[in-house]
């Protein structure tokens, strides 16, 4: 087995025992990026020299007997919406093509403090707006399982990089499903933490009240390992919560006795792809066999999640993205002679269609005369959605559902139909609106051989329970061991 085939756990053990070095693992990853990324397009930027230098430093530390961080020189890819010094942070937008942040995000600092080797920045839908990675201003990312298909979005690059075994670990951000849906499409594990669990400092904001950084890996233990590094208080983010971070990695293998799994019967009705339906039902059977009970629950307001999300998120985005105006940094249209034309031209040329669409949606929803009917009402329904989850979690430990209604769709299939694209987020949006943690784990393959993801949701700050529940399924199945076969394998 090659180094890039190995799981995080195996790699950490090999690094620990001296069987391999950070330099070797990093070189193997860089070689894999060289051979595969022309097809996949997961990366926007690869920092070859920086990564190798850092790997050498970690190896040096280990040789000198210095204490080593928990990531021990493992290569990690970072979604290009998280600020990193010494590398660009473009958000896959023309607007920030030349932007080099003068500071590291809280998450970046934690990665470095844990002795991770950041190999590069991954592709995404521009400013994390999209579900297919087709909204990148630079290039599309292709699904490693089928290069004609989308890897999902917006963290499609991070998911594809792990699925194509270019890196053992990556981080993404999830505003409405942007970690879980690409994880499902690419057959890897992705976790969206509780809102406030991971610092948003240095995460370029799309929708501030929904955004959350989270980990990708090929298995649950890998995700637990990375979450433990990322989670924790940061006083630079007022919405970050000062709560203890459990040792996720130590407890992940402990099954939960008498696990109660909530299921919403409506989730299995119209619109759900039969292969996905079958995979999720099989997954529930696996849990039953492991001693869990399945309980029907109600989330009465879940039918409004798409409407609420596409008011709240664009409203916040319209404010968050106002700063990109060509005045202080970023793209500036040079031909404009005056202030207002400069604003218009810079934003008109610097942003892609989907970003403009959402800015306009949000601007409209916040406008005088419409605010009460749209934004304010959306906030009220959001509160009801949160209450639905509170009520449901009184009776169950986790809620299980599909991640997306279908396996990965074809590139170009939905890009001209924004509404249908938005509807594909129906299972994931609730967790963001309610601020609760969610995970996507591989739970089957479609008849076409495409991965299918199972979503589990838990109460706020119950990532530990979520990971253990996910691991119960994983240890009883082998879906997480399935790998995409690439052209150059």
């Amino acid at each position, binding site marked *: 087995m090659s180094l890039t085939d190995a799981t995080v756990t195996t790699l950490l053990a090999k690094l620990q025992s001296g069987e391999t070095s950070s330099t070797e693992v990093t070189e193997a990853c860089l070689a894999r990026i060289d051979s595969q990324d022309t097809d996949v397009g997961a990366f926007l930027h690869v920092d070859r020299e920086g990564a190798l230098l850092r790997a050498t430093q970690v190896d040096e530390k280990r040789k000198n007997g210095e204490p080593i961080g928990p990531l021990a020189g493992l290569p990690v890819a970072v979604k290009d919406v998280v600020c990193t010094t010494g590398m660009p942070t473009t958000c896959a937008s023309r607007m920030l093509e030349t932007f080099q942040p003068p500071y590291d995000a809280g998450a970046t600092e934690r990665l470095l403090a844990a002795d991770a080797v950041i190999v590069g920045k991954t592709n995404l839908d521009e400013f994390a707006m999209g579900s297919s990675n087709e909204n990148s201003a630079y290039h599309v990312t292709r699904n490693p399982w089928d290069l004609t298909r989308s890897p999902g979005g917006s963290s499609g690059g991070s998911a594809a990089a792990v699925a194509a075994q270019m890196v053992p670990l990556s981080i993404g951000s999830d505003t409405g499903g942007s970690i879980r849906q690409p994880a499902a499409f690419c057959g890897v594990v992705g976790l969206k933490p509780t809102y406030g669990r991971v610092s948003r400092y240095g995460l370029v904001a799309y929708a501030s009240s929904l955004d959350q950084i989270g980990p990708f890996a090929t298995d649950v233990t890998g995700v637990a390992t990375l979450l433990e590094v990322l989670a924790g208080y940061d006083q630079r983010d007022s919405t970050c919560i000062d709560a203890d971070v459990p040792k996720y990695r130590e407890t992940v293998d402990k099954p939960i006795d008498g696990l109660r799994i909530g299921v919403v019967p409506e989730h299995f009705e119209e619109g759900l792809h039969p292969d996905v339906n079958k995979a999720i039902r099989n997954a529930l059977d696996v849990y039953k066999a492991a001693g869990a009970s399945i309980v029907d629950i109600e989330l009465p307001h879940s039918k409004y999640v798409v409407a609420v999300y596409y008011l709240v998120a664009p409203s916040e985005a319209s404010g968050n993205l106002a*700063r990109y105006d060509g005045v202080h940094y970023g793209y500036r249209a040079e031909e404009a002679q005056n202030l207002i034309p400069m604003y218009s031209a810079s934003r008109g040329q610097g942003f892609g269609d989907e970003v403009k669409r959402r800015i306009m949606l949000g601007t409209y929803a*916040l406008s005088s005369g419409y605010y009460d009917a749209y934004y304010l009402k959306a906030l009220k329904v959001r509160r009801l959605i949160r209450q639905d989850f509170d009520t449901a979690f009184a009776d169950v430990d986790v809620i299980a559902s599909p991640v997306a209604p279908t396996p990965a769709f074809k590139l170009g299939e939905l890009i001209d139909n924004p509404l249908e694209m938005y509807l594909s987020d129906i299972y994931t949006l609730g967790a963001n609106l309610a601020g609760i943690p969610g995970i996507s784990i591989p739970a089957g393959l479609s008849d076409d051989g495409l991965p299918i993801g199972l979503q589990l949701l838990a109460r706020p700050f119950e990532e530990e329970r979520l990971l253990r529940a996910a691991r119960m399924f994983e240890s009883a199945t082998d879906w997480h061991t399935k790998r995409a076969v690439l052209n150059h394998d």
Partner: protein
Amino acid sequence: MEFTTIIGLEVHVQLLTKTKIFCGCANLFNPENPNVQTCPVCLGLPGSLPVMNRKAFRLAVKTAMALNCNITPFTKWDRKQYYYPDLPKNYQISQYDLPFSTEGWLDIETDLETGESKKVRLIRVHLEEDAGKNIHDETGRGRDSRVDLNRAGTPLLEIVSQPDMRSPREAYTFLNELKLLLTYLNVSDCNMQEGSLRCDANVNLHVHTDDGHRIATPLVEIKNLNSFRGVEQAIAYEVERQQEQWRESKLTIDDSPKQTRGWDAERGVTFGQRGKEEASDYRYFPDPDLVPVVVEESQLQELRGELCEPPADRRKRFQTAYQISSYDASVIIDQGLAFADYYESVASDSGDGKQAANWVTQDIQRELNERKLTIDQFPIRPHILSTLLQRIGSQTITVKSAREVFAELLCRADNDESLSDDLIDGIIDANGLAIVSDTGQLEETIEAVISRNEKAVAAFREGKQAAVGPMIGQIMREIKGADPKQVRQMLIDKISE
């Protein structure tokens, strides 16, 4: 036709914090070095997040309490969205529908002689971040504009009054009283030149028609006001302009939206600006990057304990406690907290508030002006002045002699000598300034002077009262501590014998 002038003020005040409101950058007026007090947060760089400065919030609450406002127990931050190059995020973090305080008032003195006052009600006081500053090429050569973001993120209080002022003078007095209160509280230096206090005035008229109706004229907001005097003058100009406009057009408040006018201090006129107000929709919404602020009763109690006696109350108390005029009390209070403290210390130690008022408002004020000192830097400290005034009170020296001692004390202080009560008495002795009540010595001198001034004595006897003046002068020169009144009486008695 009778008109009532209706004035409301909107005042922005920068708070005296060490750091900015949402980041750790220094809060300093520093126009010579643009963009040095900046960081990713106040530059609005991608991914940066604001964190509220608790000290700024405390100062804001303290100020609102001193302005008699209700403090809202639950308050939040909102984004006020508009595009401008001095606003790096293109939204200002401000407060919209849940300001941290509402419904206060400020007492202003409307008549200096009678001490009559009136309440100006406040609608709200809220906290927000200041913008940066655009610097345009004023040479007319159309060179690039520049942006200085040193100021961006300075904690800024917005204080909005009800339209309770009825004359330009009242608006001036309101600002003066507000500045006094804020400087007494030490929450702002209220320096209009440096922009730490800025003011917009809303002005219109109520026309009293012959049939007893009142009609409101269109509302005008005057901007660019850069001094208290300017506020007064601009409103006065605007009142006349609006009267004229009414006579010509009969436009009422319903006929025309609020108009924004600038103030040209040099020409002394207001001028129409493009109607940005009516066109803008700020699309306020709660800032999701910040959490709401909950104010506990215990915090309020703590802050209440930190409040000082408001200048208006102190002004009234000085009049009754120290028996001074409303005018003197105002002069002393208006000099600021340190000056008022100095006065109060002297007045209470010397036991003569009136005498103390005379000294601080005249002798000390003159010295401070000449020496360009603040009262804190003045070498004669309150206890020394108190002792000097006590010497007057006990009739040891005359007021005139006390001035000599005062001058001598200043000389000594200039030579780095430390001042003490003993030094005062030493100066009195050395210069023979003690009042001489030994009539024997006086009589001797008077007789000697009479014998030297036969002509004058004769003139007095013929009825020229003024003839004794020079003789009194001669006697006083010989006996410095003599009381001129006593000398005059004894001299006249002697001549008249």
